């Protein structure tokens, strides 16, 4: 049977099911297939904090959204074009996000009375499809017994009915892979490896996957196959990568590029634990991972390792930062290199462990006693976590300071194609250990004596020397008490304290001298409105700005990698625009800093719902500001809508 093939420039698919249905794996495999095919893509996993939330209920729904296109895209998409719903709860929980006309593929098997009740349906929404008044009337619904067909397809392997039914996610993946012309080899070899030790499960999954594909090809339920051509990308070798993986690789790379052994002290916490898992695999690089007894011990061990000459790293999420605050202050006082990685999640307190947020910026900036400046670096996309980790290490090692790296749950678990860098292109970081005494003093007998002073400073960076144990003649003591300028002995002298407080701040400020100029995206150079952001809002802000420009209006965008210190040219850039909009997944933390430092009227666009900002709503806000700034009427619908218009 020949099928119609339809060209599309982009598609957003959401796989949704029970948290035990394997939706994350299904989404991840579809993503890998799309990446290998050459589409640009962005993903958004979304799952409950419970490992197995009550089966069949709304809180137990887990989903994975993938947006793939034949052009450069920036977000996982606002609204899915296709929903795959494995049970009534998955249908109900996601229906509200679907635009009119969206396609829904439903596994009818679980639409039993009991499951419908659990999901809160009084009547089966699949009854009377096509009738006027059907609750799903606005959508194109494909009811398919995915589970039943899976069980039938794998019966030769003699699995229990429960185990056989488990392969239904692979059946669904096979069907969707057919619909969108995905290459299937990588998934087959993935399944072969993953279930190498259990032959019947392996074979059942592969069989279900192929059966799903074949079902698409033969059934009359699906008459159209879609084609989304590869996206043009700059030359290079690519892989799909999540933020946590890229961040882990960045830390390994920082160790190689600095010649320092990496020492991770960490306590498991969502959504940062995957970095601990990943780094524990890389002992061949000299990476030590200590799963500590608590958050404080994790950072404590990292500080100890740094004192001993390693690159000390601690990874956590917001609640962990709160616990580590005193120790981070110790690293500020002792001026030791330390990477503190905060994969932000919804807060306060335990908050929303599996959801994303950017509300730890002010904690990173100010969350310590005393004047305790800590440089802050933030990645803007999953792949960018690699470069951000190396940059954070550069600052920590060069300036002998703790550095806060602010990732978030969206970056951590989301993925995108990443151009694999050449090792020769990575920066080399020189730890410049102290090896000689550095100060001549006059002894009591009038003779000159050479001493080691741990708090003398490099003129350019204001960094102190880093002498590690084992270096003869440089024995010294550091600690949390105030240090005397230069010699580093305990000092309670008022003038010295004032000097040291200012010097520690000046050292962090000095980092700005090493930063490249900001890149402002202002294609026409005539925009009156600037949108400024940091971290994972890069995608939605970029997509929002594109919408506004596509509709014929001007807007500029700048995105900050360095939150402390700010780049030197930021103040001048802010002054160039009449209006400054600052979208954040918090209640206005960057805008508070911008207002405080530059006296600029930064206007907040704030959303704290645990999900990434949607480009469409943000574009409306930008449009409103453009109208105000330019005294014109802005109508974003007047031009053809292309949410992710090509550049």
């Amino acid at each position: 049977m020949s099928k119609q093939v339809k060209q599309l420039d982009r598609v957003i698919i959401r796989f949704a099911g029970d948290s035990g249905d394997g939706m994350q794996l299904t989404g991840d495999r579809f993503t890998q297939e799309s990446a290998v095919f050459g589409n640009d893509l962005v993903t958004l996993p979304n799952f409950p904090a419970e490992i197995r939330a009550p089966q069949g209920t709304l809180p137990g729904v887990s989903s994975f959204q993938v947006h793939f296109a034949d052009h450069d895209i920036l977000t996982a998409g606002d609204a899915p074009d296709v929903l795959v719903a494995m049970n009534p709860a998955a249908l109900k929980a996601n229906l509200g996000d679907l635009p009119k006309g969206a396609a829904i593929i439903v596994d009818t098997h679980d639409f039993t009375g009991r499951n419908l009740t659990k999901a809160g349906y009084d009547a089966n929404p699949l009854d009377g499809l096509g009738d006027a008044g059907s609750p799903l009337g606005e959508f194109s619904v494909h009811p398919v017994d995915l589970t039943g067909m899976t069980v039938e397809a794998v019966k030769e392997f003699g699995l229990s009915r429960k185990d056989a039914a488990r392969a239904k996610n692979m059946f669904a993946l096979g069907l969707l892979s057919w619909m969108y012309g995905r290459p299937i080899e990588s998934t087959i070899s993935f399944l072969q490896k993953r279930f190498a030790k259990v032959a019947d499960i392996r074979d059942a999954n592969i069989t279900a996957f192929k059966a799903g594909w074949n079902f698409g090809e033969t059934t009359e339920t699906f008459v159209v196959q879609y084609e989304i051509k590869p996206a043009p990308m700059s030359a290079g070798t690519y892989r799909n990568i999540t933020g946590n993986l890229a961040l882990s690789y960045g830390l390994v790379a920082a160790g190689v590029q600095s010649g320092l052994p990496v020492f991770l002290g960490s306590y498991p916490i969502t959504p940062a634990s995957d970095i601990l898992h990943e780094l524990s695999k890389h002992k061949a690089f000299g990476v030590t991972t200590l799963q500590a007894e608590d958050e404080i011990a994790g950072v404590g061990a990292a500080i100890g390792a740094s004192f001993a000459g390693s690159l000390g790293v601690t990874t956590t999420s917001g609640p962990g930062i709160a616990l580590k605050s005193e120790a981070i202050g110790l690293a500020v006082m002792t001026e030791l290199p330390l990477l503190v990685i905060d994969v932000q999640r919804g807060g306060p307190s335990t908050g929303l462990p599996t959801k994303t947020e950017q509300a730890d910026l002010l904690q990173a900036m100010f969350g310590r006693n005393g004047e305790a400046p800590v440089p802050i670096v933030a990645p803007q996309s999953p792949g960018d976590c690699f470069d951000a980790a190396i940059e954070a290490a550069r600052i920590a090692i060069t300036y002998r300071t703790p550095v806060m790296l602010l990732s978030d749950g969206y970056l951590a678990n989301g993925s995108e194609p990443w151009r694999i860098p050449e090792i020769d292109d990575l920066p080399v970081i020189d730890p410049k250990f102290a090896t000689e005494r550095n100060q001549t003093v006059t002894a009591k007998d009038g003779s000159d004596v050479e001493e080691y002073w741990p708090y003398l400073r490099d003129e350019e960076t204001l960094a102190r020397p880093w002498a590690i144990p084992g270096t003869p003649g440089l024995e010294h003591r550091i600690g949390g008490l105030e240090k005397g300028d230069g010699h580093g002995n305990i000092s309670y002298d008022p003038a010295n304290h004032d000097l040291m407080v200012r010097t520690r701040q000046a050292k962090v400020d000095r980092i700005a001298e090493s930063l490249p100029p900001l890149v402002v995206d202002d294609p026409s150079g005539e925009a009156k409105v600037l949108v400024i952001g940091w971290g994972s809002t890069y995608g939605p802000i970029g997509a929002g700005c594109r919408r506004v420009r596509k509709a014929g209006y001007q807007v500029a965008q700048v995105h900050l990698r360095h939150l402390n210190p700010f780049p030197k040219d930021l103040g001048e850039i802010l002054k160039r625009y009449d209006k400054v909009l600052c979208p954040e997944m918090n209640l206005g933390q960057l805008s508070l800093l911008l207002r405080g430092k530059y006296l600029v009227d930064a206007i907040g666009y704030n959303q704290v719902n645990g999900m990434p900002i949607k480009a469409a709503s943000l574009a409306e806000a930008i449009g409103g500001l453009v109208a105000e700034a330019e005294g014109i009427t802005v109508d974003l619908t007047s031009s053809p809508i292309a949410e992710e218009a090509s550049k």
Partner: protein
Amino acid sequence: MTTTSTSSTENLPFPGLRSGVELVPTNDQPQTSKEYTSDQEVRWCPGCGDYAVLKAVQGFLPELGLRRENIVFVSGIGCSSRFPYYLDTYGMHSIHGRAPSIATGIATAREDLSVWVVTGDGDALSIGGNHLIHALRRNVNMTILLFNNRIYGLTKGQYSPTSEAGKITKSTPMGSLDHPFNPVSLALGAEGSFVARTIDSDRKHLTSVLSAAAAHRGTSIVEIYQNCPIFNDGAFDAIKNNDTKADAIIPLVHGEPIRFGVGGGKGLVRDSETGGVKIVEVGAEPGQVGEDQVLVHDAHNPDPTMAFAISRLTDSGYLNQSPIGIFRQVERPTYDDGARAQIASSREAAPGTPSERLANLIGGGDTWTVV
């Protein structure tokens, strides 16, 4: 030059057991206590027991024969935690209670360092209790000196987690309500592989215990009874006073019967009723117990039950009686050696330069090439 010490293993009870300082470079020149004395003025209160311990450590470190630059002292917060400033080695005066975690990082990162933790009863047993028990559990190669004066000194006289119940202090005008920790029992419960107790004023005993602790591979914890003349003066008088100490100190020496009292008239025997140990009169008279019944101290017993039973003879109230010496000294794999061994074997199995391996790592997985 760096050489590996072998001499320090000679005095160990187990032939073939690695010393705690085996991988630390040694110094072939004689050292003096003066070399270990920093130029900082010591600022403890006059009469403080800390002075005696500092002198003993400054006197004992040269005997270890290690290179001074390979010794690191880490402390937390409290009077005793100023200790590192007065020793001319590498050192860190860190934050309250966290010294064992910092020392864990140092000891795991570097096999060539002799790592010491100086802490107090508040630092180690209150705010830092968690790190202490986990250091002992992991058996990281470090020596912890726990100065126990049974009071908070630096914050001016509140009761501590080792203060006797009912203690009248500034924060407990009607008497403290908390039951105290017995640090030795706690350390044994945390499966410490080297657990000892000594007294600040007995330099000879202190030095011998420190030597054994340094030589032990794994976490050694030494509780040091230390008098605070300002806020808890006389807390250890019964075991320091020449008139009473014979009856107050129960000396523990590996391989010897546990006898004490004037003329060794008292001894420890198993108590079949409680499963623990009890104190008896030793002798041939009626009501006395024969010498052959007296327990012979076995610090090397893999089972800590007896060591724990002996630790319970410590008074929890005012200290009129306490076992002193090495309670337990057993061989157990150390965390840091294990961590380094995993890295070493992984490195051996990985071909190529670090840059080549990094390229392979980040270039792995499903890739595609755009030309």
